């Protein structure tokens, strides 16, 4: 009986030791895999940083060349280099427009990179959001008219004086949303609404355009996040516009979101901004 007990005890100890050894081996294996992953992650971070730096450098250089070209064409179009024929003037004006688009594209990439790195300074100035919306609408109206799109303004008589970076909100948020609505609406109308409440500004742009599929929704506000078919409509899209808009809105303590019932059913983009941040 005593012998059997001893044998059982030895077997239990042996089983326990085996189990411990197995566990230790499993731990080591998991550790080695984690180590491999950690090293890959580090290498990826370095590669990403290098790529980011290169992208920043190239964008900066291209922006410089485009700006010089832009100035030259503006000079020709405006007669700074003497009188030129109407044909040359027209060519220069066309080239100037293209240069401006080029600068805007490069600026989008640079801005996105800077926002991601947290190297963007936001001004805190008091301005009227409603005036900014009206300014942008009047600037964008010719593009809407060209496509025979109606723009309906529902701007409530509220308090729209806010503190924030006027230029960034105007260019990256208001202009971007209206510009997108015009670009992605082949026909129909655009409704721009503004209201206030709870110390917040509620701004929305609704269109009867292409709409957003469920598949596209998750990548809408991501870096370089094109909608599946958006590139077919707007070949010049960088995919950074909504990403930048989100960064700017969130830097002001606000929220931005999109709603759509699906493809071909239009979409509505809403921005909620606190009056001060």
């Amino acid at each position, binding site marked *: 009986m005593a012998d059997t007990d001893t044998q059982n005890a030895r077997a239990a100890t042996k089983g326990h030791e085996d189990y411990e050894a197995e566990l*230790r081996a499993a*731990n*080591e294996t998991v*550790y*080695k895999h*984690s180590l491999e992953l*950690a090293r890959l992650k*580090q290498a990826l971070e370095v590669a990403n940083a290098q790529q980011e730096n290169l992208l920043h450098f190239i964008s900066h250089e291209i922006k410089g060349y485009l700006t010089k070209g832009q100035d030259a064409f503006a000079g020709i179009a405006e007669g700074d280099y003497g009188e030129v024929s109407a044909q040359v003037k027209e060519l220069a004006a066309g080239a100037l427009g293209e240069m401006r688009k080029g600068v805007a594209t490069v600026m989008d990439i640079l801005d996105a990179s800077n926002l991601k790195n947290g190297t963007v300074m936001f001004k805190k100035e008091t301005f009227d959001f409603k005036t900014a919306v009206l300014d942008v609408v009047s600037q964008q109206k010719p593009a809407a008219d060209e496509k025979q799109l109606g723009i309906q303004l529902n701007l409530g008589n509220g308090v729209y004086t806010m503190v924030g970076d006027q230029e960034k909100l105007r260019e990256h948020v208001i202009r971007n949303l209206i510009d997108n609505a015009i670009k992605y609406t082949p026909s129909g109308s655009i409704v721009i609404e503004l209201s206030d409440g709870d110390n917040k500004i509620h701004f929305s742009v609704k269109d009867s355009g292409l709409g957003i599929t469920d598949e596209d929704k998750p990548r809408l506000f991501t870096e370089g996040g094109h909608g599946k078919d958006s590139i077919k409509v707007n070949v010049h899209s960088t995919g950074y516009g909504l990403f930048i808009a989100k960064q700017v809105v969130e830097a002001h303590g606000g929220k931005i979101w999109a709603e759509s019932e699906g493809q071909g059913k239009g979409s509505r983009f809403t921005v909620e901004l606190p009056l001060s941040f």
Partner: protein
Amino acid sequence: MTAFDTIAEKIILEQELVIGPLAWSEAMKVSGMQVAADHTVTIQNGDPKAAVDRLVAQYERLFGRASHEVCREAVATLVKSMAPADVPTSLR
């Protein structure tokens, strides 16, 4: 912060990259080593070299030889500038 505090902290930080927060909880179990809530590491009275050795052993006991190598690599530059006699045995 002493050179040994720095060595211990670097080792824990490197282990954290691989095993996450477990690196800190394991370091807290090492006798002679105090890990504050803000993750400041202080080696208390006693032999600091032995405390570092115990830290390395703590990881090795759980995760094997590979974790020992990670500790050694983490502080390779620091150790180079030390007199050989001052280097904890586990890191030689």
